């Protein structure tokens, strides 16, 4: 479980008490701190039975839709518009990707050559880098497993030789900054 998955589990409507999360919290001080900050709100949702309790009126037999039903034209319009939006979302590219503009065939050919050249340059560069890195393979730091808690990974990295530790620490700092950038400190 990584920090992102830990937040998902922490804010799970069915309850945040699972063994995997507890294990993660034991090893990750940043997530533990986040859990402590959010604890009053999370406990409130847990104690108010947000997920399990039915609205009170349902117990008084008022839920059978026995009252006269009504449907405004406005509601149908809202439903149709929502369907259109959902359909557009499912076809549209991600918002940060701009749609390609139409270009002339001549310009397209030029662009293709340019892209081809770039790809060749990148593959040559990658090849050279691969060759150089294979020479230093024995001294390369261990890569982190996807989904592994970075904090836990650091602890295991600390057990390795000192030359690995420096590059691992740098990776951890960068990853933690990216993950916890918006985490406020506890007052």
């Amino acid at each position, binding site marked *: 479980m990584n920090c992102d998955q830990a937040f998902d589990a922490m804010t799970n409507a069915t309850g945040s008490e699972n063994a995997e999360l507890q294990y993660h919290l034991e090893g990750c001080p940043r997530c533990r701190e986040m859990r402590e900050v959010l604890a009053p709100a999370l406990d409130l949702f847990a104690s108010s039975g947000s997920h399990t309790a039915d609205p009170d009126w349902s117990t008084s037999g008022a839920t059978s839709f026995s009252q006269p039903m009504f449907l405004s034209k406005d509601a149908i319009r809202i439903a149709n518009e929502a*369907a259109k939006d959902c359909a557009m979302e499912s076809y549209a590219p991600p918002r940060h990707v701009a749609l390609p503009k139409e270009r002339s065939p001549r310009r397209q050919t030029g662009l293709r050559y340019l892209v081809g050249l770039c790809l060749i340059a990148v593959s040559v560069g990658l090849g050279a880098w691969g060759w150089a890195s294979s020479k230093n393979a024995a001294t390369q730091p261990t890569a982190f497993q996807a989904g592994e808690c970075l904090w836990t990974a650091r602890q295991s990295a600390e057990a390795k030789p000192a030359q690995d530790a420096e590059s691992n620490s740098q990776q951890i700092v960068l990853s933690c900054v990216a993950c916890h950038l918006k985490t406020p400190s506890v007052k």
Partner: protein
Amino acid sequence: MSEPMGDAELMLRVQEGQLACFDELVCRYRVPLTRVALSKTGDAGRAEDIVQETFLAVYASRQSFNPKFAFRTWLWTILLNLCRRDYRKRSRTPRVLPHTTVNATASETYSTPVSLETGLTHVLQVEQGELVAKLLNELPEVQADAIRLRFYGALTYREIAEAMKSSEIGAKVRVKKGLQNLAERLRTESGETK
């Protein structure tokens, strides 16, 4: 044992005229939709009306459903929009703080005999529910809605993002900030009472 039918498949059958499939969808989503509507409107009668209208609108525009998008996203989007419309309609009238009972006195609510323990638990839950609804109403709407969808609707962050037209990270940030605000309010209030 056969797997329960998916929402999209049920909707396709509804489009073909099998009304029983629509009942199944109503059974699946009525309670979570009502929890969210109740939390947003603060009035059980209005919440019920909005949920009814949501299902009726889904049924009336069933032919516009496309299995390429998630039924849940469509349903929650309609509910949120109907809640907003309801709020705009009633914005001139003073907003009533949420009550989780429907024009019912305690004796009406407990129409069947309950033990003291069950009754006490129930009262405590109602009080907590009212407190949550009050605090949620004081949050920015996007944060409160994201929290409602997460905790009352049990939606994933991706579904929240789709229903609220935001990114998945945006949905998480909304929930996180909302919870932080709630926690801070609760700490302040508990500090004041001491």
